[in-house]
């Protein structure tokens, strides 16, 4: 998984039926210190995140599909599976 910040969302009327009811968010990968770490990606939202939230994004098809749509087999690459409160370096 990677850390990311939600910077927006995508509205698509014509889409795969498996996505119905889901929200497609634009996520910018970040490092633990908050700096940017690469290009934005699209992820289906499984946890009701909002713009500005720091989130955990899983980048694997089966995990993304089961968490965001409830069953495997949807054509999805990544999903938001958690909203981060803090990144603590005193593990």
């Amino acid at each position, binding site marked *: 998984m990677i850390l990311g910040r939600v910077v927006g969302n995508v509205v698509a009327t014509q889409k795969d039926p498996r996505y119905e009811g889901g929200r497609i968010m634009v996520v910018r990968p970040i490092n633990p210190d908050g700096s940017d770490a690469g290009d934005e990606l699209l992820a289906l939202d499984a946890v009701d995140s909002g713009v500005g939230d720091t989130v955990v994004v899983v980048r694997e098809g089966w995990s993304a599909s089961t968490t965001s749509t409830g069953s495997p087999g949807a054509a999805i690459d990544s999903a938001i599976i958690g909203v981060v409160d803090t*990144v603590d370096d005193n593990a």
Partner: protein
Amino acid sequence: MENGKWKMEFRIRSFQTSIFHLPFIISHFLTGLYTPAQAGSGWRLCYRKVSPMQLARVLGTVVATVKSESLEGRKLLVIQPLDGSFEQKGQPLVAIDSVGAGKGEIVFWCRGREASFPFLPSEVPSDCTIVGIVDSVFLDSRFTGSNPKSTI
């Protein structure tokens, strides 16, 4: 993954396949166990960037109250992937812990669909799971070309 090598591999439904599997594939075709429709959706010849070493150092924990139900009770750690000489490689990742690792430890991790296997039969969404705590790494300098720098 920046330092990874490009590797070509043949995959059927995410399982890596080799020439040795060919008789099984053909026999499955002949007996109808594996239909062309499945093949069309599942076969692919792909180039994948493979990481030469799946070591990482644990940097800290991620605290997330709102998370997917299937992540309840799982520990999320931030890890920094390392190369063979324990230099930082690539961007930090968030990993689920399956072995009880802590901050500062060198760990062995796996990626992809297989990353959720340690938690079976629970279906945990993960593409990066810590599967071992490294005690030591031995690299023979005759093959690596330089003396390894052990930081453990």
